[in-house]
Every structure is written in structure tokens, then in C-alpha cells.
């Protein structure tokens, strides 16, 4: 392949899909211990759990929750596309599927945000 026809992998739509999948996975992994610790307060200090849940009523926390729900949704739907890429025939239009995963994730997290506010 000549240099003129070679296209950089970075910057391709599916390269962004790959990076989003990794970054969302790392972010969710970092969030999980905090999530588990807060839920464990139900066992050790229920009053503290309630005060933490009251903290989630703050507007900036709701925006952060929206972000977390979006990360979970994009990791799920992007991951389903990756599994399809690995295990199904390669004819699928993967840029369209990646765009679909983004759209569904925006819809799901947007629905969550509208219910939360």
C-alpha cells in the first residue's frame, strides 16, 4: 500500500468507538468501588446513606449521574457492536452501528436525566 493511499487509523470513526469503549470501561471501573461503598452504608449506617442520597439531589450531581448512565449505556451498546464484529460475519455496517450505539445511549441517558430532574 502506498503512502498516498494509507489512511491513519487514528481519527477514524471506529477508532473513536474503540477509545470511547475503553475510556468508559475505565471510568465505570473507577466508579464501582464508590457505588458499592455507598450501597453498603445500608448495612452499617442507614442515616448516612440517606444523607448521601439527599446529596444526589444537587443539580451538578444529577448532571454527573447523567454522565455515568451515558457511560454505562455506551459501554453496553458499543460492547454489543464489538461482539458482533468479533463473532458475526464482517458484512455489517459498523460505522452505522457505532452511530446507533451512540444515539441509543444518548436517548437512554437523556430519558434518565429527564426523570431525575
Amino acid at each position, binding site marked *: 500500500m502506498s503512502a498516498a493511499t494509507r489512511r491513519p487509523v487514528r481519527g477514524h470513526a471506529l477508532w473513536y468507538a474503540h477509545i470511547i469503549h*475503553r475510556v468508559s*470501561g*475505565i471510568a*465505570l*471501573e473507577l466508579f*464501582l*468501588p464508590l*457505588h*458499592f*461503598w455507598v*450501597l*453498603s*452504608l*445500608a*448495612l*452499617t449506617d*442507614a442515616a448516612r*446513606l*440517606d444523607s448521601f*442520597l439527599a446529596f*444526589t*439531589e444537587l443539580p451538578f450531581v444529577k448532571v454527573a*449521574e447523567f454522565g455515568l*448512565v451515558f457511560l*454505562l*449505556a455506551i459501554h*453496553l451498546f458499543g*460492547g*454489543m457492536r464489538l*461482539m458482533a464484529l*468479533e463473532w458475526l460475519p464482517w458484512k455489517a455496517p459498523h460505522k452505522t452501528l457505532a452511530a446507533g450505539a451512540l444515539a441509543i445511549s444518548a436517548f*437512554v441517558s437523556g*430519558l*434518565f436525566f429527564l*426523570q*431525575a430532574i
Partner: protein
Amino acid sequence: MLDFRLYMAQRLSALIMAPLVIGHLAVMIYAVRGGLSAGEILGRTHGSLFWTLFYGGFVVAVSVHAAIGLRTIISEWTRLRGAMLNGLAMVVFAVLLVMGGRAVLAVTML
């Protein structure tokens, strides 16, 4: 052979989690209406075998999935290899499993 087994474990845990995440997203959208309280959350989950199995399975699958995923990313983005890499993945697995298991027991009280 280890890499193949880790690959399969990560994909199988992803397959198990796909319906669980969809369920969790639906629960979150439903539960967040009108704000969250400990009483409301625990009223739904206390003593429920269904939610114990649902979130218990979720915790096991996510511990496997996250530990292997992080191991893959670290091996590709850093120079960490061998026992250090596997040890780190085991620590991630154990921390998520213990903390997640404790959280499930806390909200279901089973």
C-alpha cells in the same frame, strides 16, 4: 492458552451482563423519579431473592469482566507484564467482588 481463556471469560461475562445492564438501566430510570431514598431502595430489594440473584450475578460478572478488561488495557498501554500484571488484575477482581458482594447483601439483607 491463558490469554484465550481470559478472552472467553471476558466475552462470556459480557454476554451474561448485557441483559442485566439493560435491566439496571430500566430500574434506574424508574427509581430516580421523585428522588432516591434509602427507604425506597431497601423497600424494593429487602428480602428479595430475585434482586439478590440479579445483582449477585451482576457483581460476579462485572468483577471478572472489569479485571480482565483492565488487564488488557494495562498490557497494551504500559510495560507492565507477568506476575505484576496478573496480580493487579486479581486485586481488582477481589476488591470488586468483596465490595460488590457486601453491597448486594446490604440492600437485600438475605
